[in-house]
């Protein structure tokens, strides 16, 4: 009986939780240990996951330890100069081979019995070579650390355990057109501004996951303190009638999504002027996209297509995510010297049990940014996002409430509703890339996140 139920669950784990017709997700999905175990297998051991940036490990032997689901992996630069990702589990007795979170090592030697591995994961040997303590059954080539499939894109390190599955390009699909605008726009690319912040949030990982898919609406209420301070436009008392930053273009594909906020809105909010009627070039000169200074603009023009530059001039992508567990903020932000600058931030959401996740936060700048500006961008990012960020401290306070709701037997019979639908409506001058939702930021992209989740969870092979 129990086995029959299990069989059915494995074949069809989510149809009782996700009502596709009515666009509802059962709150029970936030507190189901069996579902969580299956998510580790079908989402986190299958999707492409972003683990960090190659500027974190510039030299041969440099490594950081990161998470793929609940699996620790070593992300290292090997003698071949390439980035390798391998399971941080010794094939001998399952000890963690790396016991620090970062460093430089030409060989990783397990402290338990001394099995040693190169930065590419290959097995060097066990102590007392003549005694052959790895035995004679398996050759050394079979005794390396388990390797993940790796792809570095825009400097970001992605890995997956789905060795024969779709490539990263296929996984990103049409959204790559927009991600290129964030990650592949300057000659030298991005660099991290230091090691990431890490903290624990007592909530199911999907609470933060689905929000990363263009939940523009929550900013009006949850982040109202910024509205009161005038940072999001509109007046506090009339926020629901007058919220210009809510109108924009949400783009979405394969569960990934980005919110593009009209340059007109940003320019009038920041400078109190309009730049309607200007050409793309004039607009970009007046107000380059977040993270780009006028000095870097020629590089952006060179590296991107006219269509991408048009999107930048009209409505640059500023916030969003990558399915399943990445949150992106490339936003304008005042710097401490009084100039208008930006903060560039990536988060990853790492499950740590059904009711916990680790929230990891990296800050970025383009490599060619002057050092003093980088320091100001890092400060602006820390003040707005991450641990103490005045934007995100309200989010981290909210998600645990949702998980707690799911612990109640009645609470979990409620649903998350994604019924505010804008529908696809691409403006005539917008590139035909991914699904395009122009207008008030509604539930469309977040629902697409759940459809991608549904798709991956029901795919068995």
């Amino acid at each position, binding site marked *: 009986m129990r086995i029959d139920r299990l069989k059915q669950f494995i074949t069809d784990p989510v149809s009782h939780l996700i009502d596709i017709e009515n666009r509802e997700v059962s709150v029970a999905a936030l507190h189901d240990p069996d579902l969580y175990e299956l998510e580790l297998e079908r989402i986190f051991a299958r999707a492409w996951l972003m683990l960090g940036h190659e500027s974190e490990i510039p030299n041969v032997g440099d490594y950081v330890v990161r998470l793929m689901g609940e699996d620790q992996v070593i992300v290292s630069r090997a003698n071949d100069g390439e980035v390798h990702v391998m399971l941080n589990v010794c094939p001998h007795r399952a000890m963690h081979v790396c016991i620090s979170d970062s460093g430089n090592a030409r060989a990783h030697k397990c402290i338990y019995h001394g099995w040693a591995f190169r930065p590419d994961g290959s097995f060097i040997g066990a102590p007392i070579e003549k005694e052959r303590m790895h035995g004679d059954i398996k050759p050394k080539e079979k005794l390396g650390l388990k390797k993940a499939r790796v792809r570095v894109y825009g400097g970001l390190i992605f890995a997956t355990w789905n060795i024969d599955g779709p490539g990263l390009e296929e996984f990103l699909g049409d959204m790559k057109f927009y991600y290129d605008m964030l990650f592949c726009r300057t000659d030298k690319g991005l660099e991290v501004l230091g090691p990431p912040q890490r903290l624990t949030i007592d909530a199911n990982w999907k609470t933060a996951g689905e929000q990363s898919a263009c939940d523009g609406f929550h900013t009006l209420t949850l982040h109202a303190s910024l509205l009161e301070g005038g940072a999001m436009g509109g007046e506090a008392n009339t926020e629901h009638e007058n919220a210009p930053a809510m109108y924009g273009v949400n783009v979405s594909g394969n569960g990934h999504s980005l919110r593009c906020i009209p340059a007109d809105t940003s320019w009038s909010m920041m400078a109190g002027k309009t730049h309607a009627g200007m050409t793309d070039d004039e607009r970009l000169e007046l107000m380059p996209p977040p993270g780009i200074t006028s000095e870097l603009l020629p590089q952006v023009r060179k590296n991107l297509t006219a269509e991408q530059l048009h999107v930048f001039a009209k409505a640059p992508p500023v916030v969003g995510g990558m399915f399943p567990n990445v949150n992106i903020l490339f936003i304008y932000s005042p710097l401490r010297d009084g100039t208008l600058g930006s903060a560039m931030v990536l988060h990853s959401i790492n499950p740590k049990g059904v009711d916990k996740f680790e929230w990891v936060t990296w800050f970025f700048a383009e490599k060619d940014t002057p050092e003093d500006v980088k320091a100001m961008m890092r400060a602006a990012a820390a003040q707005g996002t991450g641990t*103490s960020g005045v934007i995100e401290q309200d989010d981290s306070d909210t998600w645990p409430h949702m998980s707690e709701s799911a612990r109640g037997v009645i609470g979990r019979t409620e649903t998350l509703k994604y019924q505010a639908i804008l529908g696809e409506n691409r403006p005539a001058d917008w590139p035909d890339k991914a699904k395009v939702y122009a207008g008030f930021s509604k539930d469309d992209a977040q629902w697409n996140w759940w459809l991608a989740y549904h798709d991956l969870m029901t795919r068995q092979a």
Partner: protein
Amino acid sequence: MAISTELTPASPSATLTEVPYGSEVHNRISGWLIREARLLDHRLLDEWATGLAEDLVYKAPVRLTRRVQGFSSEFGDTGHFDDDYGSMMARVKRLTGTRSAWSEDPASRTRRFVSNVSVWETDTPDEYEVSSYLLLTRNRADARDYKQLSAERNDRLRWNGERFLLARRTILLDQVVLGMPNLAIFL
């Protein structure tokens, strides 16, 4: 790296003179730290902010787990706080002057236990390097448990003729992965 993690604070002079325990200066500074903790625990943030110097540097570098035994190599360039006077005043204003700073509304109930106070004279008259230990407990809503945090704080305190002002604070946290979901409170 600009973060001072030395047992004796970094200084242009070869040696700093430690202010003896029980001396008048040590007592005054210990008293200042205790009053500061009380102001923060009672959420008298506007009053607390009057003790911040306008050239304030307020940082809490992220911590790392490293193989090599070296205290100073355990702190990164990024911070959980990376603030100055202007940004700290904006944080205080958000908490005390808006109606929707949800991360602290309802507010956390906190206790700051401050101990192990060491004080050094500096090359600047009336400025002191001060190191203290902080144990903070934080409880919210109906949670049964506490979120805890321990740290060493390395401060620069300036006597302005009337009172002490905090000119620099570097908070060296003991957690690599913070156990609390945010730092919507001050350390």
